[in-house]
């Protein structure tokens, strides 16, 4: 499942439909964009078409990725990269691969996942996260308490597992928006 398209380099994204123009955006759209990670990106300018949903999604995304305590941020980033690899989201995986690498200084872990696939040899905590993220992504209905045992074995408490579930679920969401409203492009 090696896929050379996945990268640790920065990638850009282009919309397949006209985006909201900052100059003609409504005050609500501007406020929702302000609360988004990158208000000037074509991605958020696309989502701003439906301001009602963006007003909820941006704070949800922020909480799931950055809420204090619970699952360490690097673990959340790793989970989102795994989901993005499975769904084939080159843009999402690039962004969150770099976040993981910044937090851990270990880009080689992501590179191995890219080059050798999700079965590559990993330390036990990363293995447990990758396996759970993959199963909840591919076959959510097949997830049972048995799938939580490897997470417990590496010391995860209820809140950490709760956060992991949400990080995985958030990227079922993010990948589908990114992949169905536009496409990744090489930096220009």
């Amino acid at each position: 499942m090696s896929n050379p398209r996945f990268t640790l380099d920065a990638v850009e994204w282009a919309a397949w439909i006209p985006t909201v123009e900052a100059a003609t955006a409504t005050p609500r759209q501007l406020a929702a964009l302000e609360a988004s990670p990158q208000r000037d990106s074509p991605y958020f300018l696309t989502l701003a078409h439906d301001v009602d949903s963006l007003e909820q999604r941006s704070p949800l995304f922020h909480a799931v990725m950055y809420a204090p305590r619970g699952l360490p941020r690097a673990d959340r980033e790793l989970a989102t990269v795994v989901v993005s690899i499975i769904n084939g989201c080159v843009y999402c995986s690039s962004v969150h691969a770099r976040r993981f690498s910044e937090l851990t200084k270990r880009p080689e872990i992501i590179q191995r996942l890219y080059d050798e696939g999700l079965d590559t040899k990993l330390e036990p905590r990363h293995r447990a996260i990758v396996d759970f993220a993959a199963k909840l992504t591919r076959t959510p209905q097949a997830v049972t308490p048995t799938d939580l045992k490897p997470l417990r074995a590496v010391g995860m408490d209820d809140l950490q597992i709760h956060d992991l579930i949400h990080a995985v679920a958030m990227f079922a969401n993010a990948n589908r928006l990114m992949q169905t409203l536009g496409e990744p492009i090489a930096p220009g």
Partner: protein
Amino acid sequence: MAGTDIVNGAAGLSPLSPVVALRGQRAAFVRHTQGSYDALIIPADPAGVSLIERAAVALRVASIERDVALLAHYRARLAALGADRAMVSAAEGEGGATDVPPRLVAILDHVAVVTTAPGSASQARLDALRDAGLAPRDIVTIAQVVAFVSYQVRVVAGLRALAQETHA
């Protein structure tokens, strides 16, 4: 607009479940998950995508993801909005629904593709939706409903496993 928490209901969590208390430690997750549902499924102003179309899209995703509880939820929602049997069948992916408006057929076809294989979306698919009369905003709304239910299915599945483990 405040009401029952849809995730708790679909995951089968009683108000006294330890998992409900656990969710209480992450109030922003709970608030904006339900807030996303409210904004996408039961908006006061549905604008260019009708409530029936929104419920049909959600049912299509829940059906493909095979979440029994969410499937029942969105089927009931669609029926409560007055959708006929043909429309409910189409939203559940059963063929032969000839009485469904072409616009909804185009939407559901798109939804099935991007739910099953998000990487198979294309500019041509969105152009086809625009040809079926959808504005850019409508296309974003549909993408948000698909993305939200895809998220909701996995939150519910994960929390369900956590609740079963807690009670084991």
